[in-house]
């Protein structure tokens, strides 16, 4: 082979390699997109924490949570969504360079386990903050312990103590009782002639979940029925038939169950041809697209679901980032009210941590959480706050959505939940007096 040919061959190979290298660089540069949650926080764009796009590599800040998990009652989506947001924060500078190390424990509905797990978080794990708690007995069993140890807990509440007796626990949701109340209000406005308020025995050990729903019925002067059933539901057809029989023609039924159980009952109703016999309502857990998709067209506009948080396909900046964060960091977690709650809790906790001046300590972080007010987010109807009060219920205004062709769409805009308790009446008074949720000045998100 002549040297000319060899040189030509070498040149060809070299130029091919160079071309490949250049194209790889160009493709890489052109194809690179900004990391999820990076950028600058503004009125139209939400970011994860500082939004730097740089991984936090400092000493981890330990944050913990507790959620209920047993067959028929599973709140893990809340903690998973909180973990997803914290992971996004860690990929965007963390808390001034320190990543958040989030750990959550699951518990069955058992006061001993709930107490033990709380002590594990506080005494063994020595967490700096407690966020994402959604444990049926947590507020009842642990609120004094948290208070004694200086924690201001941001969670999603279930038990009545979460809303009327825990000074150092504030929730991003209004809980099943108030949510069922909202659903009942929607049904009464739609013309329901009676109300059957139905929930699970396991999810309502204190028997308070249906009280607001019944109060709405009594105020409207229509018959009310307090109904409880075991979960998992094992005979959905009879269950649905029983509820419809109790409600009577054109009555209303409010279901307060986790989505899989509510879906069984609703499908049982469909199988029995009972959809149009009554007006159906559901507390906020039903505000999930897979429920709408599973129900299908026969339920279009026929299930009034109370929505404590924004519509799932809302284009607001926080909701847009919520979907992106869940997709990247918690792909198997359902887009729905539960994950919205966990995400919002992590969002608020992160902002509070970023507002701590100087060293991050448990005391400073919890004081910062306590001082949160006027926290604006498009996920909630009104700005969120914590503050100093004997009890908290900052999210007491919500919406109604209905399924439409596999999606939940808005039926009614934000409305005040019927204040059937003196606590909620007091809370609304404090909100006005202390300007807790006027939105001005807005709480700084990035410190």
């Amino acid at each position, binding site marked *: 082979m002549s040297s000319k040919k060899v040189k030509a061959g070498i040149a060809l190979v070299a130029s091919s390699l160079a071309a490949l290298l250049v194209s790889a660089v160009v493709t890489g540069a052109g194809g690179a997109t900004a990391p999820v949650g990076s950028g600058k926080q503004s009125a139209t764009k939400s970011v994860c924490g500082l939004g730097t796009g740089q991984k936090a590599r400092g000493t981890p800040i330990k944050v913990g949570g507790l959620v209920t998990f047993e*067959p*028929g009652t*599973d*709140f*893990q*989506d809340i903690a998973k969504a909180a973990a997803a947001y914290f992971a996004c924060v860690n990929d965007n500078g963390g808390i001034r360079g320190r990543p958040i190390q989030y750990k959550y424990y699951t518990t069955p509905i058992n006061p001993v386990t709930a107490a033990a797990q709380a002590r594990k978080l506080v005494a063994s794990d020595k967490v700096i903050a407690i966020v994402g708690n959604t444990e049926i007995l947590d507020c009842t069993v642990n609120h004094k312990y948290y208070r004694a140890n200086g924690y201001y807990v941001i969670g999603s509440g279930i038990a009545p103590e979460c809303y009327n007796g825990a000074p150092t626990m504030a929730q991003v949701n209004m809980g099943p009782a108030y949510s069922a109340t909202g659903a009942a209000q929607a049904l009464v406005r739609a013309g329901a002639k009676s109300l059957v308020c139905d929930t699970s*025995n396991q999810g309502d050990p204190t028997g308070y979940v249906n009280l607001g729903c019944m109060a709405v019925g009594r105020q409207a002067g229509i018959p009310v029925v307090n109904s*409880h*059933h*075991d979960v*998992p*539901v*094992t*005979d*959905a*057809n*009879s*269950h649905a*038939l*029983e509820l419809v*029989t109790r409600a009577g023609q054109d009555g209303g039924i409010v279901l307060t169950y*986790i*989505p*899989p159980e509510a*879906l*069984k009952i609703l*499908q049982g109703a*469909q*199988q*029995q*041809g*009972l959809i149009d016999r009554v007006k159906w309502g559901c507390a906020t*857990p039903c505000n*999930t697209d*897979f*429920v709408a998709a*599973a129900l299908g067209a026969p339920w279009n506009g026929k299930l009034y679901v109370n929505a404590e948080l924004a519509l799932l396909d809302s284009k607001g900046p926080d909701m847009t980032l919520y979907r992106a964060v869940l997709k990247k960091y918690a792909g*198997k*977690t*359902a887009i*729905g009210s*539960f994950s919205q709650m966990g995400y919002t809790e992590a969002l608020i906790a992160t902002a509070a941590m970023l507002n701590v001046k100087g060293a991050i300590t448990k005391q400073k972080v919890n004081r910062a959480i306590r001082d949160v007010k006027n926290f604006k987010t498009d996920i909630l109807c009104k700005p969120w706050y914590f503050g100093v009060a004997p009890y908290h219920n900052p999210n007491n205004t919500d919406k109604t959505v209905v399924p439409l062709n596999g999606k939940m769409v808005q039926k009614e805009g934000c409305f005040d939940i019927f204040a059937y308790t003196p606590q909620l009446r007091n809370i609304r008074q404090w909100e006005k007096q202390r300007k807790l949720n006027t939105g001005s000045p807005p709480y700084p998100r990035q410190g």
Partner: protein
Amino acid sequence: MPDVAEVLLLGLALDDFKPFILTGLALGAVYALSATGIVVLYQATGVLNLAFGAVGALGALVSWELLNSTDVPHWVAYLACVLVGGAVTLAYGLVFGSVFAARDQLVKAIGTLGLALVLLGTMYWIWPAGTFARSLIMGTTNWGYQVDFLNARVNGTQIIAFCFAVAVTVLTALFLRFTKLGTAMRAMANDREITATLGVPVRRVEAAAWLGSGLVCGASGLLLANLVGLDAGTLTFLVISALAAALIARLRSLWVTLVAGIGIGLAEALATPIFEISRYRTMAPFVLAIAALLIFQRQRVVPVARATR
């Protein structure tokens, strides 16, 4: 004043119970179907299959997965549910059947409990429960008509469930009575060793029993996923109602099994409109099974006592 003849219980009229008869019959029929599978397997192998519900749940979830992740026709997915039931049960029978053959019945039953727990864990691992709801609704479920005199709607799946349960019971009874394989199964129920000595291929007969029972198990899983809901835990533990029906039949009579299964379903459903006991209606299988066992125990004890006298 209400018609006295119409007032049955706690102020409720007959009309209050009527709508629940259809749901009770359908659910009871599937309990009976499951119980038939349990009884036949027990008679042939001496194994009380506690994994019956878990295997059915696995079949139903596989069916759901096929429908949601592939383009297979619906009938293929439903058939897969039945076949998965048969395959898993047969595999267990082939592997563990002979291992446990000489052990007592408690050990055999505990072996199947192990299978149930393994399957339950596997299902929760592959298809986490979480807040995500799955549903497996056959086309027949959306078809139905109003039964005016019962003031209720009956759907296609409920009709299929009832007819299928009765058909399986009849065919199984005929099969056990008139076929060679059936006779061999009945012989094994009496004495496995003697049956083997007589030249019956006991391993093959047992395999047939495992397979047949598994196919029934898959079919039950499919029907229950429609009538009750697609949830691994719920379907796994519905075996309790089927076991109660099998116990009432003393693990012998298929006809009593059928009646007992339907009776349990009806008892559960008819307790629904009685507000005072409605929330305890899931106890119906236990209560009926315990009552039956007490009665049978008494029948067995009394003759012995008489003989002793």
